[in-house]
């Protein structure tokens, strides 16, 4: 990153740091007892649980101020003002790739893991992640991104509105079935998009293999070898259990 750009970011960060340091001090003074009684013990300032956070807040404010001065001296503040009024706002290829990774991580951790069978959510995420970047074509990445985002929004509505609970009451593991259907549609959609390119078809097959096999191995190892109860054990893990106990 070039220096002026770095100082521009430093200027913004320094303001955030000063604000954060200030918040730490205000919060500590107002919420943590410095002299009052707590749990039957009369406090004095030097043993108060607020002493250390106040020190950290002060130091963060000090460092933020030093960083701010440096950023102003190196032209960071001026660059902030320049970019504030500039109209040029284009998403670069790298930014788009970054957004793709964030979408995958966020949906995996906050959307699927707490609600969907862990094997299924892992398999879906691996397939999406590998196909996004292994096929390595910007046009395909955009199409996959939009398709996956739309699917996730549908599930978000389903989960936030509580419809998934109702569906699961009507038919056991119906949410898992719906996510599995989404996985199959994603497979079909991606396969159709690359149908004319032999090299991409080979990569797609590898993506599918690398989404199914590691999910199976990892989940089987954690569940049956390390005896870790998984976040959500839905329909697929139930099938794995049947096989596991049939083999024993």
């Amino acid at each position, binding site marked *: *990153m070039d220096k002026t750009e*770095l100082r521009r*970011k*430093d200027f913004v*960060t320094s303001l955030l740091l000063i604000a954060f340091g200030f918040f*730490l001090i205000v*919060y*500590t003074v107002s919420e*943590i*007892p410095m002299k009052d009684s*707590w*749990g039957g*013990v009369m406090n*004095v*300032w*030097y*043993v*108060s*649980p*607020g*002493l*250390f*956070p106040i020190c*950290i807040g002060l*130091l*963060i404010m000090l460092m*933020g101020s*030093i*960083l701010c001065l440096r950023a102003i001296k190196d032209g960071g503040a001026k660059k902030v003002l320049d970019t504030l009024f500039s109209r040029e706002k284009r998403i670069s290829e*790298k930014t788009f*790739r*970054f957004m793709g*990774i*964030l979408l995958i*991580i*966020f949906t*995996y*951790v*906050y959307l699927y*893991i*707490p609600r969907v069978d862990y094997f299924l959510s*892992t398999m879906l*995420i*691996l397939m999406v*992640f*590998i196909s*996004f*970047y*292994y096929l*390595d074509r910007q046009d395909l990445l955009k199409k996959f991104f939009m398709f996956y985002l739309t699917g996730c929004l549908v599930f978000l509505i389903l989960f936030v509105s509580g419809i998934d609970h109702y569906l699961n009451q009507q038919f056991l593991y119906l949410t898992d079935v719906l996510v599995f259907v989404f996985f199959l549609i994603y497979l079909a959609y991606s396969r159709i998009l690359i149908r004319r390119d032999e090299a991409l078809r080979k990569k797609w097959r590898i993506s599918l293999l*690398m989404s199914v096999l*590691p*999910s199976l191995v*990892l989940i089987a190892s*954690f569940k049956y070898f*390390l*005896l*870790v*109860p998984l*976040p959500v054990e839905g329909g697929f893990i139930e099938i794995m259990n049947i096989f596991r106990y049939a083999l024993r």
Partner: protein
Amino acid sequence: MFILQQIWDFYATVFHTALSIENILLLFGSVILGITFGALPGLTATLGVGLLTTLTYGFSTNAAMITLLGMYVGAVYGGSYGSICVNIPGTAAAAATAMDGYPLACKGEAGRALGLTTTASFIGTMVGMFFLALFAPLIAKLALQFTSFEFFFLAFFGIMISGGLTGQDLVYKGWIAGLIGLFLSTIGRDHLQFFPRFTFGLSELDGGLEVVPVLIGAFGIPQIIQVIRDQLSVGEAKKFQRVLPEFGIILRRIKTIIRSALIGVGIGAVPGIGEDIAAWVSYGTAKKASKHPEMFGKGAYEGVIASETANNACIGGAIIPLLTLGIPGSPPAVMLLGALMIHNVTPGPMISIENPHFIMEMTAILCLASFATFISGLLLAKQVVKVLRIPPPVFMPIVLVLCVIGSYSLGTKVFNLYLMVPIGILAYYMQSMGYPIAPLVIGVILGPMADENLRRALMVSQGSFLPFFTRPVALILFIIIVWMFISQTPFYKRFAGELRGKRFKGKMANPPTE
């Protein structure tokens, strides 16, 4: 008697470990996994140790340490494979190795270069182990004299020095990272009065942030984002026939070996500074000391030997402050500290009393790990190089899944994942703006130590700060901390610059005579 006891502990552990088939399998398995992990560009020793930590929580302490040290030593060594064969260092620690390793491979000497790194890494680890065995018990005994006053400054010193030396852009960015780490450590109920701080009514935060998910988030998520965002691609690996131990070449460069090993151990013992800095400092020193510095960068054997000896010697060095003071010497050592905490081993001065054999057990395991790495390196180099063919977009998603399941499985809490992701993204942004990550995690680790000891010390002195300046060790640490801060101010820099200018003028006016 004490020394005899230590030697007995060392050999007892070596034989106990070597005679157990399970331990040997664990040792070789983790070393090979470590070499593979290190060889793959984008995967670091820190991440490897962190991910493996989550798998070892069901093991005995001894078995867990065999696994983790095997991974650590293997990964630091394995980084050289990428450097030599494809000119992409597998780990940051092996970046200096690429300077001469790849030119050697281009000349058709890839096998010899790998032989040199294998032998140099083995010697480096053994020297590090020797220093660990020699100094750790002494430092642990010395540290028993420390009180809360010294421990507060020691924790602060660790954060300051780690921040100061790892900052890529401005020194105080490292300190800011350390302060953010200290803030994260205050979340949850404080350890002296159990008062909830920054929990915002969330009962999940009452216990504080769990260390391992924070570590995995801070090191794993930025790595995944960076590799995928920047489209890291790996070229065709250079071919080679056999890897043989290169004792002849090494013996002719014994001075370089000794110097590099000492640099490695020394840098490793400084809190938070990792193998990468040790390798670069050693490489630079070897170049300065060489009779043929012009050969560096074109395939000089000294270059490869210097960086590989230093980065592996750093491991032993990094474990010294970890075990004796509870302050990790390098980022992978931070992960080791997390693992030790899981296994109810509290590193610090009390270790020699609570676990009198532990330091020697770690030394013995390090010795066995270095032998296992040497043997695996010689026998399996050709097979391991094949992993370089795996493209990053295929293995990085699997690393993400490992990070997630690893963070979750320690406390079986989904809440750990909710914390891991924002910390990972914060770490990524900080890294992209030149803030080092090591001080952040060291802040998280050392925060409770600084907090509790500050308040305990003030409790003892009834609120007086005077004892901080009347106790010799505390005073020395205080002076160093203040000096580190002042040396970064524009006033000091101007003053130092003027002083240098005066000296230079003085020399010019009175040139030295024969």
